[in-house]
Protein backbone atom coordinates (compact mmCIF):
# COMPACT_ATOMS: atom_id res chain seq x y z
CA UNK A 1 0.00 0.00 0.00
CA UNK A 2 1.28 3.45 -0.91
CA UNK A 3 0.37 6.18 1.55
CA UNK A 4 -0.26 9.81 0.74
CA UNK A 5 -0.69 12.68 3.19
CA UNK A 6 -3.46 15.07 2.18
CA UNK A 7 -2.13 18.54 3.02
CA UNK A 8 -4.93 21.06 3.48
CA UNK A 9 -2.96 24.09 4.79
CA UNK A 10 -5.30 24.35 7.77
CA UNK A 11 -5.82 28.00 8.67
CA UNK A 12 -6.33 28.89 12.35
CA UNK A 13 -8.23 32.14 12.56
CA UNK A 14 -7.33 34.37 15.51
CA UNK A 15 -11.00 35.37 15.78
CA UNK A 16 -14.39 33.78 15.16
CA UNK A 17 -15.36 33.76 11.46
CA UNK A 18 -18.79 34.41 9.97
CA UNK A 19 -20.37 30.97 9.43
CA UNK A 20 -21.71 31.56 5.94
CA UNK A 21 -20.11 31.02 2.53
CA UNK A 22 -18.63 33.13 1.02
CA UNK A 23 -16.73 34.20 4.13
CA UNK A 24 -15.75 37.86 3.56
CA UNK A 25 -12.10 37.96 2.57
CA UNK A 26 -11.75 41.00 4.84
CA UNK A 27 -11.96 38.64 7.82
CA UNK A 28 -8.78 36.88 6.67
CA UNK A 29 -5.74 37.56 8.86
CA UNK A 30 -2.56 37.81 6.75
CA UNK A 31 -0.28 36.87 9.66
CA UNK A 32 -2.36 33.81 10.47
CA UNK A 33 -2.18 32.89 6.75
CA UNK A 34 1.61 33.20 6.78
CA UNK A 35 1.71 31.04 9.91
CA UNK A 36 -0.44 28.40 8.18
CA UNK A 37 2.01 28.13 5.29
CA UNK A 38 5.02 28.02 7.67
CA UNK A 39 3.34 25.25 9.64
CA UNK A 40 2.64 23.41 6.38
CA UNK A 41 6.35 23.23 5.58
CA UNK A 42 7.32 22.08 9.09
CA UNK A 43 4.59 19.46 9.01
CA UNK A 44 5.55 18.18 5.57
CA UNK A 45 9.19 17.83 6.53
CA UNK A 46 8.00 15.62 9.39
CA UNK A 47 5.63 13.75 7.06
CA UNK A 48 8.58 13.04 4.77
CA UNK A 49 10.70 11.79 7.70
CA UNK A 50 7.88 9.47 8.76
CA UNK A 51 8.10 7.80 5.35
CA UNK A 52 4.91 8.80 3.54
CA UNK A 53 5.16 8.18 -0.21
CA UNK A 54 3.20 11.17 -1.45
CA UNK A 55 1.91 14.51 -0.28
CA UNK A 56 -1.33 15.51 -1.99
CA UNK A 57 -2.81 18.95 -2.55
CA UNK A 58 -6.21 19.93 -3.88
CA UNK A 59 -7.97 22.95 -5.37
CA UNK A 60 -10.53 24.78 -3.23
CA UNK A 61 -11.71 28.35 -3.58
CA UNK A 62 -12.79 31.01 -1.11
CA UNK A 63 -12.23 28.58 1.76
CA UNK A 64 -10.93 29.56 5.20
CA UNK A 65 -10.31 25.88 5.94
CA UNK A 66 -8.16 24.96 2.97
CA UNK A 67 -5.87 27.69 1.70
CA UNK A 68 -5.07 26.13 -1.68
CA UNK A 69 -6.91 27.90 -4.51
CA UNK A 70 -3.95 27.10 -6.77
CA UNK A 71 -2.74 23.53 -6.20
CA UNK A 72 -0.01 23.87 -8.82
CA UNK A 73 1.47 26.77 -6.90
CA UNK A 74 1.26 24.79 -3.62
CA UNK A 75 2.89 21.78 -5.20
CA UNK A 76 5.74 23.79 -6.73
CA UNK A 77 6.46 25.46 -3.40
CA UNK A 78 6.34 22.16 -1.51
CA UNK A 79 8.49 20.39 -4.10
CA UNK A 80 11.21 22.97 -3.59
CA UNK A 81 11.34 22.20 0.15
CA UNK A 82 11.17 18.41 0.13
CA UNK A 83 13.74 15.91 -1.03
CA UNK A 84 11.99 12.63 -1.61
CA UNK A 85 8.21 12.67 -1.50
CA UNK A 86 6.15 12.62 -4.67
CA UNK A 87 3.80 15.56 -5.19
CA UNK A 88 0.29 14.33 -5.85
CA UNK A 89 -1.61 17.14 -7.45
CA UNK A 90 -5.09 15.76 -6.98
CA UNK A 91 -7.04 18.38 -8.77
CA UNK A 92 -6.61 21.03 -10.98
CA UNK A 93 -10.37 21.46 -11.39
CA UNK A 94 -10.32 20.98 -15.14
CA UNK A 95 -13.51 22.82 -16.21
CA UNK A 96 -12.28 26.00 -14.50
CA UNK A 97 -9.00 25.97 -16.29
CA UNK A 98 -7.35 26.68 -19.57
CA UNK A 99 -6.36 23.08 -20.37
CA UNK A 100 -3.28 24.11 -22.34
CA UNK A 101 -2.09 26.16 -19.38
CA UNK A 102 -2.67 23.17 -17.07
CA UNK A 103 -0.69 20.93 -19.44
CA UNK A 104 2.15 23.46 -19.53
CA UNK A 105 2.31 24.03 -15.80
CA UNK A 106 2.15 20.33 -14.93
CA UNK A 107 4.88 19.55 -17.46
CA UNK A 108 6.96 22.34 -15.96
CA UNK A 109 6.36 21.10 -12.42
CA UNK A 110 7.15 17.48 -13.35
CA UNK A 111 10.41 18.65 -14.87
CA UNK A 112 11.38 21.03 -12.03
CA UNK A 113 10.54 18.34 -9.45
CA UNK A 114 12.66 15.81 -11.41
CA UNK A 115 9.71 13.52 -12.09
CA UNK A 116 8.26 13.52 -8.55
CA UNK A 117 4.73 14.24 -9.79
CA UNK A 118 1.41 12.40 -9.84
CA UNK A 119 -1.65 14.09 -11.33
CA UNK A 120 -5.36 13.75 -10.66
CA UNK A 121 -7.83 15.52 -12.94
CA UNK A 122 -11.41 16.16 -11.91
CA UNK A 123 -14.66 17.98 -12.44
CA UNK A 124 -14.82 19.45 -8.94
CA UNK A 125 -17.89 19.71 -6.77
CA UNK A 126 -20.64 22.03 -7.90
CA UNK A 127 -19.96 24.68 -5.24
CA UNK A 128 -16.56 25.36 -6.82
CA UNK A 129 -18.31 26.43 -10.03
CA UNK A 130 -19.56 29.57 -8.27
CA UNK A 131 -16.09 31.03 -7.92
CA UNK A 132 -15.31 31.40 -11.63
CA UNK A 133 -18.88 31.80 -12.89
CA UNK A 134 -18.93 28.44 -14.58
CA UNK A 135 -22.29 26.97 -15.57
CA UNK A 136 -22.46 23.73 -13.49
CA UNK A 137 -24.59 22.11 -16.19
CA UNK A 138 -21.63 22.26 -18.61
CA UNK A 139 -18.97 21.18 -16.11
CA UNK A 140 -18.94 17.48 -17.01
CA UNK A 141 -18.57 18.13 -20.74
CA UNK A 142 -15.86 20.72 -20.18
CA UNK A 143 -14.02 18.30 -17.90
CA UNK A 144 -13.98 15.44 -20.40
CA UNK A 145 -12.87 17.69 -23.22
CA UNK A 146 -10.28 19.52 -21.10
CA UNK A 147 -8.78 16.25 -19.84
CA UNK A 148 -8.50 14.90 -23.37
CA UNK A 149 -6.82 18.10 -24.50
CA UNK A 150 -4.34 18.04 -21.58
CA UNK A 151 -3.34 14.46 -22.45
CA UNK A 152 -2.95 15.37 -26.11
CA UNK A 153 -0.94 18.51 -25.38
CA UNK A 154 1.47 16.36 -23.33
CA UNK A 155 1.90 13.68 -25.98
CA UNK A 156 1.39 15.09 -29.50
CA UNK A 157 4.81 15.71 -31.06
CA UNK A 158 3.64 18.07 -33.80
CA UNK A 159 1.85 21.42 -33.43
CA UNK A 160 -1.90 20.93 -33.66
CA UNK A 161 -5.15 22.84 -33.50
CA UNK A 162 -8.14 21.86 -31.37
CA UNK A 163 -11.66 22.35 -32.66
CA UNK A 164 -13.59 21.48 -29.53
CA UNK A 165 -17.02 22.06 -28.10
CA UNK A 166 -15.88 24.22 -25.20
CA UNK A 167 -12.25 24.90 -26.08
CA UNK A 168 -10.68 26.06 -29.31
CA UNK A 169 -7.02 26.54 -30.18
CA UNK A 170 -5.38 26.95 -33.57
CA UNK A 171 -1.88 26.15 -32.30
CA UNK A 172 -0.84 23.89 -29.42
CA UNK A 173 2.82 22.87 -29.02
CA UNK A 174 3.91 22.97 -25.40
CA UNK A 175 7.43 23.45 -24.00
CA UNK A 176 8.56 21.84 -21.78
CA UNK A 177 6.95 18.46 -22.12
CA UNK A 178 6.74 16.30 -18.99
CA UNK A 179 9.92 14.63 -17.75
CA UNK A 180 7.99 11.39 -17.13
CA UNK A 181 7.10 9.95 -20.52
CA UNK A 182 4.61 9.83 -22.06
CA UNK A 183 3.21 11.78 -19.10
CA UNK A 184 3.15 11.68 -15.28
CA UNK A 185 1.01 8.95 -13.67
CA UNK A 186 -2.48 10.39 -14.00
CA UNK A 187 -5.80 9.63 -12.33
CA UNK A 188 -9.31 10.58 -13.31
CA UNK A 189 -10.84 11.45 -9.95
CA UNK A 190 -14.47 10.57 -9.35
CA UNK A 191 -16.93 7.75 -9.02
CA UNK A 192 -19.10 8.66 -12.00
CA UNK A 193 -19.61 6.41 -14.98
CA UNK A 194 -18.16 9.19 -17.17
CA UNK A 195 -15.02 9.52 -15.08
CA UNK A 196 -14.43 5.74 -14.86
CA UNK A 197 -14.95 5.35 -18.61
CA UNK A 198 -12.60 8.22 -19.39
CA UNK A 199 -9.92 6.67 -17.15
CA UNK A 200 -10.35 3.27 -18.77
CA UNK A 201 -10.26 4.65 -22.32
CA UNK A 202 -7.09 6.65 -21.70
CA UNK A 203 -5.36 4.08 -19.46
CA UNK A 204 -5.41 6.37 -16.44
CA UNK A 205 -5.82 5.54 -12.78
CA UNK A 206 -9.12 5.93 -10.94
CA UNK A 207 -9.43 7.91 -7.71
CA UNK A 208 -12.44 7.73 -5.39
CA UNK A 209 -13.04 9.46 -2.09
CA UNK A 210 -14.82 9.48 1.27
CA UNK A 211 -17.68 7.06 0.54
CA UNK A 212 -18.14 3.67 2.28
CA UNK A 213 -15.97 0.84 0.95
CA UNK A 214 -18.91 -1.05 -0.59
CA UNK A 215 -20.12 2.02 -2.49
CA UNK A 216 -16.66 3.01 -3.69
CA UNK A 217 -16.12 -0.61 -4.70
CA UNK A 218 -19.00 -0.28 -7.17
CA UNK A 219 -17.08 2.49 -8.91
CA UNK A 220 -13.70 0.70 -8.90
CA UNK A 221 -15.35 -2.53 -10.11
CA UNK A 222 -16.98 -0.63 -12.97
CA UNK A 223 -13.62 1.00 -13.74
CA UNK A 224 -11.89 -2.40 -13.90
CA UNK A 225 -14.65 -3.76 -16.15
CA UNK A 226 -14.21 -0.81 -18.50
CA UNK A 227 -10.42 -1.28 -18.50
CA UNK A 228 -10.94 -4.92 -19.51
CA UNK A 229 -13.22 -3.75 -22.31
CA UNK A 230 -10.36 -1.56 -23.53
CA UNK A 231 -7.96 -4.50 -23.29
CA UNK A 232 -5.89 -3.71 -20.20
CA UNK A 233 -5.75 -4.25 -16.45
CA UNK A 234 -4.99 -1.48 -13.98
CA UNK A 235 -2.40 -2.10 -11.26
CA UNK A 236 -3.25 -1.59 -7.57
CA UNK A 237 -1.27 1.66 -7.73
CA UNK A 238 -3.86 2.95 -10.20
CA UNK A 239 -6.71 2.82 -7.69
CA UNK A 240 -6.62 5.61 -5.13
CA UNK A 241 -8.91 6.08 -2.15
CA UNK A 242 -9.01 9.40 -0.27
CA UNK A 243 -10.50 9.43 3.22
CA UNK A 244 -10.43 10.96 6.68
CA UNK A 245 -8.62 8.92 9.30
CA UNK A 246 -8.95 9.41 13.05
CA UNK A 247 -6.35 7.35 14.84
CA UNK A 248 -5.91 7.48 18.65
CA UNK A 249 -4.28 5.27 21.32
CA UNK A 250 -7.56 3.41 21.88
CA UNK A 251 -10.85 2.92 20.02
CA UNK A 252 -12.71 4.69 22.86
CA UNK A 253 -10.50 7.75 22.60
CA UNK A 254 -10.94 7.92 18.82
CA UNK A 255 -14.73 7.71 19.03
CA UNK A 256 -14.82 10.29 21.82
CA UNK A 257 -12.88 12.65 19.51
CA UNK A 258 -15.27 12.00 16.64
CA UNK A 259 -18.24 12.97 18.83
CA UNK A 260 -16.73 16.46 19.08
CA UNK A 261 -17.13 16.90 15.35
CA UNK A 262 -20.02 18.99 14.13
CA UNK A 263 -22.33 17.07 11.81
CA UNK A 264 -22.84 20.02 9.47
CA UNK A 265 -20.35 21.20 6.88
CA UNK A 266 -18.56 24.42 7.82
CA UNK A 267 -19.32 27.65 6.00
CA UNK A 268 -22.54 26.62 4.30
CA UNK A 269 -24.20 28.63 1.56
CA UNK A 270 -27.47 30.39 2.11
CA UNK A 271 -30.40 27.99 1.78
CA UNK A 272 -31.74 29.45 -1.47
CA UNK A 273 -28.38 29.05 -3.22
CA UNK A 274 -27.62 25.70 -1.59
CA UNK A 275 -30.93 24.21 -2.71
CA UNK A 276 -30.52 25.48 -6.27
CA UNK A 277 -26.99 24.08 -6.34
CA UNK A 278 -28.08 20.71 -4.98
CA UNK A 279 -30.51 20.25 -7.85
CA UNK A 280 -27.64 20.90 -10.28
CA UNK A 281 -25.18 18.62 -8.52
CA UNK A 282 -25.82 15.53 -10.61
CA UNK A 283 -23.54 12.81 -9.27
CA UNK A 284 -23.41 9.12 -9.85
CA UNK A 285 -21.52 6.02 -8.79
CA UNK A 286 -20.86 3.92 -11.88
CA UNK A 287 -24.08 5.25 -13.41
CA UNK A 288 -26.31 4.97 -10.31
CA UNK A 289 -27.53 8.29 -8.89
CA UNK A 290 -25.62 9.41 -5.81
CA UNK A 291 -26.98 11.80 -3.21
CA UNK A 292 -25.19 15.12 -2.95
CA UNK A 293 -22.93 15.55 0.09
CA UNK A 294 -24.53 18.04 2.46
CA UNK A 295 -23.04 17.44 5.93
CA UNK A 296 -19.48 17.01 7.13
CA UNK A 297 -17.37 14.48 5.23
CA UNK A 298 -17.37 11.04 6.91
CA UNK A 299 -14.43 9.59 8.79
CA UNK A 300 -13.80 6.19 7.23
CA UNK A 301 -10.87 4.96 9.26
CA UNK A 302 -11.33 5.33 13.01
CA UNK A 303 -9.87 3.69 16.10
CA UNK A 304 -6.68 2.42 17.65
CA UNK A 305 -3.70 1.53 15.43
CA UNK A 306 -4.77 -2.15 15.44
CA UNK A 307 -8.33 -1.29 14.40
CA UNK A 308 -7.21 1.10 11.69
CA UNK A 309 -4.77 -1.43 10.22
CA UNK A 310 -7.64 -3.93 9.87
CA UNK A 311 -9.81 -1.25 8.22
CA UNK A 312 -7.04 -0.53 5.73
CA UNK A 313 -6.81 -4.26 4.99
CA UNK A 314 -10.57 -4.30 4.28
CA UNK A 315 -10.24 -1.22 2.07
CA UNK A 316 -7.63 -3.01 0.00
CA UNK A 317 -9.80 -6.11 -0.30
CA UNK A 318 -13.11 -4.40 -1.01
CA UNK A 319 -12.14 -1.26 -2.96
CA UNK A 320 -8.95 -2.64 -4.47
CA UNK A 321 -7.10 0.55 -3.59
CA UNK A 322 -3.31 0.45 -3.68
CA UNK A 323 -2.93 4.10 -2.70
CA UNK A 324 -4.48 5.70 0.38
CA UNK A 325 -4.69 9.47 0.47
CA UNK A 326 -5.33 10.41 4.09
CA UNK A 327 -6.47 13.48 5.91
CA UNK A 328 -5.43 13.01 9.54
CA UNK A 329 -6.95 16.13 11.09
CA UNK A 330 -8.62 15.29 14.40
CA UNK A 331 -12.07 16.84 14.27
CA UNK A 332 -13.30 19.62 16.50
CA UNK A 333 -10.01 21.44 16.60
CA UNK A 334 -8.22 23.84 14.36
CA UNK A 335 -5.10 23.56 16.51
CA UNK A 336 -2.06 21.97 14.94
CA UNK A 337 -0.75 20.10 18.00
CA UNK A 338 -3.43 17.35 17.82
CA UNK A 339 -2.65 16.86 14.12
CA UNK A 340 1.06 16.46 14.89
CA UNK A 341 0.20 13.88 17.60
CA UNK A 342 -2.04 12.00 15.14
CA UNK A 343 0.75 12.07 12.58
CA UNK A 344 3.27 10.67 15.04
CA UNK A 345 0.92 7.89 16.09
CA UNK A 346 0.09 7.04 12.49
CA UNK A 347 3.71 7.25 11.38
CA UNK A 348 5.04 4.97 14.13
CA UNK A 349 2.17 2.52 14.79
CA UNK A 350 0.21 2.30 11.52
CA UNK A 351 2.36 3.22 8.54
CA UNK A 352 4.98 0.46 9.01
CA UNK A 353 2.19 -2.15 9.25
CA UNK A 354 0.17 -1.16 6.17
CA UNK A 355 3.09 -1.09 3.74
CA UNK A 356 2.71 -4.78 2.98
CA UNK A 357 -1.08 -4.74 2.68
Amino acid sequence: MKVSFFETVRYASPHALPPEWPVPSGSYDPDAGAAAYRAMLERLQYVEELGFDWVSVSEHHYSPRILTPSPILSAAFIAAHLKRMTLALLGPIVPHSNPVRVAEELAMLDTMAQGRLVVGLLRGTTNEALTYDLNPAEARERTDEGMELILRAWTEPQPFGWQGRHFQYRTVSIWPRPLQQPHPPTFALGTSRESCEFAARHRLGCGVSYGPFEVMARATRYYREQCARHGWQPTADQILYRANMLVAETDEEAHALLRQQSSSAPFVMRAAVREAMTTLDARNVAGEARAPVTGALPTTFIGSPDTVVEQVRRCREVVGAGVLDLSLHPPGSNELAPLMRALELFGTKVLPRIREI
Partner: protein
Amino acid sequence: MRDDAPAVVERWIEADGLRFRYVETGRGAPLIHLCGEGGLRLTPAHELLSRHFHVVVFDAPDPGQTPELAATVTRAIGALSLGPFNLMGTSSSAGTAVGVALRESAGVTALVLEAPTTIRPEARDAELERRLAELTTPTLVLLGTEDTVVPSAAGRIYKEKLPAGHLVFVYGAGHAISIDRPEAFAEVVVDFLERREAFVISRATTLINP
Protein backbone atom coordinates in the same frame (compact mmCIF):
# COMPACT_ATOMS: atom_id res chain seq x y z
CA MET B 1 -31.42 22.39 -44.89
CA ARG B 2 -32.73 25.83 -44.00
CA ASP B 3 -35.64 27.26 -45.95
CA ASP B 4 -33.44 30.08 -47.22
CA ALA B 5 -30.62 27.70 -48.19
CA PRO B 6 -29.11 28.50 -51.57
CA ALA B 7 -30.47 26.60 -54.56
CA VAL B 8 -28.74 23.36 -55.48
CA VAL B 9 -28.10 22.53 -59.14
CA GLU B 10 -27.03 19.10 -60.40
CA ARG B 11 -24.80 18.86 -63.49
CA TRP B 12 -22.38 16.57 -65.34
CA ILE B 13 -18.93 17.27 -66.76
CA GLU B 14 -16.76 15.08 -68.98
CA ALA B 15 -12.99 14.59 -69.07
CA ASP B 16 -10.90 11.84 -70.70
CA GLY B 17 -14.12 10.10 -71.68
CA LEU B 18 -15.33 9.91 -68.06
CA ARG B 19 -18.48 11.63 -66.86
CA PHE B 20 -18.47 13.23 -63.42
CA ARG B 21 -21.67 14.13 -61.60
CA TYR B 22 -21.49 17.26 -59.49
CA VAL B 23 -23.78 19.70 -57.71
CA GLU B 24 -23.33 23.42 -57.19
CA THR B 25 -24.60 25.60 -54.41
CA GLY B 26 -23.79 28.98 -52.85
CA ARG B 27 -21.96 32.07 -54.01
CA GLY B 28 -18.41 33.32 -53.54
CA ALA B 29 -14.94 32.03 -54.35
CA PRO B 30 -15.08 28.47 -55.73
CA LEU B 31 -14.61 25.51 -53.40
CA ILE B 32 -14.37 22.13 -55.10
CA HIS B 33 -15.16 19.21 -52.83
CA LEU B 34 -14.22 15.67 -53.82
CA CYS B 35 -16.52 13.41 -51.77
CA GLY B 36 -15.32 10.25 -50.05
CA GLU B 37 -16.56 6.65 -50.26
CA GLY B 38 -20.11 7.58 -49.27
CA GLY B 39 -20.58 9.26 -52.65
CA LEU B 40 -22.25 12.53 -53.47
CA ARG B 41 -24.67 13.73 -50.87
CA LEU B 42 -25.19 17.23 -49.56
CA THR B 43 -24.83 17.58 -45.81
CA PRO B 44 -25.54 20.39 -43.34
CA ALA B 45 -21.82 21.19 -43.55
CA HIS B 46 -22.17 21.92 -47.29
CA GLU B 47 -25.02 24.27 -46.48
CA LEU B 48 -22.82 26.11 -43.94
CA LEU B 49 -19.96 26.33 -46.45
CA SER B 50 -22.31 27.55 -49.20
CA ARG B 51 -22.96 30.73 -47.20
CA HIS B 52 -19.35 31.73 -47.91
CA PHE B 53 -18.32 29.87 -51.07
CA HIS B 54 -19.52 28.70 -54.44
CA VAL B 55 -19.43 25.04 -53.45
CA VAL B 56 -19.00 22.47 -56.23
CA VAL B 57 -19.39 18.95 -54.89
CA PHE B 58 -18.03 16.11 -57.02
CA ASP B 59 -19.15 12.53 -56.66
CA ALA B 60 -16.38 10.30 -55.31
CA PRO B 61 -14.21 9.59 -58.35
CA ASP B 62 -13.72 5.85 -58.80
CA PRO B 63 -9.98 5.16 -58.84
CA GLY B 64 -10.56 2.03 -60.94
CA GLN B 65 -11.78 4.02 -63.93
CA THR B 66 -8.48 5.60 -64.94
CA PRO B 67 -4.82 5.12 -64.09
CA GLU B 68 -4.35 8.88 -63.83
CA LEU B 69 -7.35 9.85 -61.73
CA ALA B 70 -5.84 13.09 -60.40
CA ALA B 71 -5.01 14.20 -63.98
CA THR B 72 -8.53 13.41 -65.18
CA VAL B 73 -10.14 15.19 -62.22
CA THR B 74 -7.83 18.18 -62.83
CA ARG B 75 -9.07 18.33 -66.44
CA ALA B 76 -12.70 17.98 -65.34
CA ILE B 77 -12.29 20.89 -62.91
CA GLY B 78 -10.49 22.88 -65.63
CA ALA B 79 -13.43 22.32 -67.97
CA LEU B 80 -15.63 24.24 -65.49
CA SER B 81 -13.50 27.38 -66.16
CA LEU B 82 -13.78 28.59 -62.57
CA GLY B 83 -10.37 30.26 -62.32
CA PRO B 84 -8.36 29.75 -59.10
CA PHE B 85 -10.24 27.53 -56.64
CA ASN B 86 -10.13 26.05 -53.16
CA LEU B 87 -10.05 22.28 -53.00
CA MET B 88 -11.24 19.83 -50.37
CA GLY B 89 -10.89 16.04 -50.43
CA THR B 90 -12.61 13.70 -47.99
CA SER B 91 -11.30 10.33 -46.79
CA SER B 92 -10.03 8.29 -49.80
CA SER B 93 -10.51 11.30 -52.13
CA ALA B 94 -7.99 13.30 -50.11
CA GLY B 95 -5.21 11.56 -52.06
CA THR B 96 -6.82 12.63 -55.35
CA ALA B 97 -7.09 16.18 -54.01
CA VAL B 98 -3.36 16.15 -53.18
CA GLY B 99 -2.67 14.92 -56.73
CA VAL B 100 -4.77 17.74 -58.22
CA ALA B 101 -3.04 20.35 -56.02
CA LEU B 102 0.41 19.07 -57.08
CA ARG B 103 -0.59 19.44 -60.75
CA GLU B 104 -2.36 22.75 -60.35
CA SER B 105 -0.23 24.45 -57.72
CA ALA B 106 -0.98 27.87 -59.23
CA GLY B 107 -4.71 27.17 -59.56
CA VAL B 108 -5.40 25.77 -56.06
CA THR B 109 -5.63 28.60 -53.53
CA ALA B 110 -5.87 26.36 -50.47
CA LEU B 111 -6.37 22.67 -49.77
CA VAL B 112 -8.41 20.90 -47.08
CA LEU B 113 -7.98 17.19 -46.34
CA GLU B 114 -10.83 15.80 -44.25
CA ALA B 115 -9.88 12.54 -42.46
CA PRO B 116 -7.43 11.53 -45.24
CA THR B 117 -6.92 7.77 -45.49
CA THR B 118 -3.96 8.02 -47.86
CA ILE B 119 -1.22 7.73 -45.23
CA ARG B 120 -1.55 5.80 -42.01
CA PRO B 121 1.13 5.00 -39.45
CA GLU B 122 0.84 1.30 -40.32
CA ALA B 123 0.65 1.96 -44.09
CA ARG B 124 3.22 4.61 -44.97
CA ASP B 125 3.59 5.74 -48.59
CA ALA B 126 7.16 6.96 -49.19
CA GLU B 127 6.45 8.28 -52.68
CA LEU B 128 3.41 10.28 -51.62
CA GLU B 129 5.23 11.59 -48.52
CA ARG B 130 8.07 12.80 -50.78
CA ARG B 131 5.53 14.59 -52.97
CA LEU B 132 3.79 16.17 -49.95
CA ALA B 133 7.09 17.92 -49.24
CA GLU B 134 6.76 19.60 -52.66
CA LEU B 135 3.23 20.83 -52.03
CA THR B 136 3.49 24.53 -51.23
CA THR B 137 -0.29 25.09 -51.20
CA PRO B 138 -1.59 26.05 -47.73
CA THR B 139 -3.13 22.80 -46.50
CA LEU B 140 -5.43 22.06 -43.59
CA VAL B 141 -5.59 18.46 -42.35
CA LEU B 142 -8.61 17.65 -40.19
CA LEU B 143 -8.85 14.52 -38.02
CA GLY B 144 -11.62 13.51 -35.63
CA THR B 145 -10.47 12.51 -32.15
CA GLU B 146 -12.82 9.48 -32.32
CA ASP B 147 -11.79 8.37 -35.83
CA THR B 148 -11.36 4.58 -35.86
CA VAL B 149 -10.25 4.49 -39.53
CA VAL B 150 -7.43 7.03 -39.40
CA PRO B 151 -5.61 7.20 -36.06
CA SER B 152 -4.50 10.58 -34.71
CA ALA B 153 -0.89 9.54 -35.23
CA ALA B 154 -1.42 9.90 -39.01
CA GLY B 155 -1.89 13.63 -38.55
CA ARG B 156 1.65 14.24 -37.41
CA ILE B 157 3.02 12.66 -40.62
CA TYR B 158 1.18 15.25 -42.74
CA LYS B 159 2.25 18.00 -40.38
CA GLU B 160 5.89 16.91 -40.63
CA LYS B 161 5.92 16.64 -44.44
CA LEU B 162 3.74 19.52 -45.64
CA PRO B 163 5.67 22.81 -45.93
CA ALA B 164 2.48 24.84 -45.35
CA GLY B 165 0.42 22.28 -43.47
CA HIS B 166 -1.83 22.72 -40.45
CA LEU B 167 -3.25 19.88 -38.39
CA VAL B 168 -6.49 20.39 -36.47
CA PHE B 169 -8.20 17.77 -34.30
CA VAL B 170 -11.97 17.97 -34.24
CA TYR B 171 -12.98 16.86 -30.75
CA GLY B 172 -15.71 14.24 -30.52
CA ALA B 173 -15.84 13.59 -34.28
CA GLY B 174 -15.33 10.19 -35.86
CA HIS B 175 -14.18 9.55 -39.45
CA ALA B 176 -17.14 11.51 -40.90
CA ILE B 177 -16.11 14.82 -39.33
CA SER B 178 -18.42 17.06 -41.34
CA ILE B 179 -21.40 14.87 -40.46
CA ASP B 180 -20.54 14.42 -36.78
CA ARG B 181 -19.73 18.06 -36.04
CA PRO B 182 -20.88 20.21 -38.99
CA GLU B 183 -20.62 23.59 -37.24
CA ALA B 184 -17.13 22.94 -35.87
CA PHE B 185 -16.04 21.57 -39.25
CA ALA B 186 -17.44 24.49 -41.28
CA GLU B 187 -16.07 27.11 -38.86
CA VAL B 188 -12.46 26.00 -39.19
CA VAL B 189 -12.71 25.29 -42.95
CA VAL B 190 -14.24 28.71 -43.72
CA ASP B 191 -11.70 30.47 -41.52
CA PHE B 192 -8.82 28.61 -43.16
CA LEU B 193 -10.03 29.19 -46.71
CA GLU B 194 -10.67 32.88 -46.05
CA ARG B 195 -7.40 33.65 -44.29
CA ARG B 196 -5.24 30.62 -45.12
CA GLU B 197 -2.22 30.43 -42.81
CA ALA B 198 -3.24 33.61 -40.97
CA PHE B 199 -6.17 31.63 -39.57
CA VAL B 200 -3.95 30.87 -36.57
CA ILE B 201 -4.58 34.45 -35.40
CA SER B 202 -7.84 34.45 -33.47
CA ARG B 203 -10.51 36.95 -34.45
CA ALA B 204 -13.08 35.68 -31.96
CA THR B 205 -14.18 38.30 -29.47
CA THR B 206 -14.11 37.75 -25.71
CA LEU B 207 -16.02 40.96 -25.05
CA ILE B 208 -19.05 40.27 -22.83
CA ASN B 209 -20.64 43.71 -22.56
CA PRO B 210 -19.21 46.82 -24.19
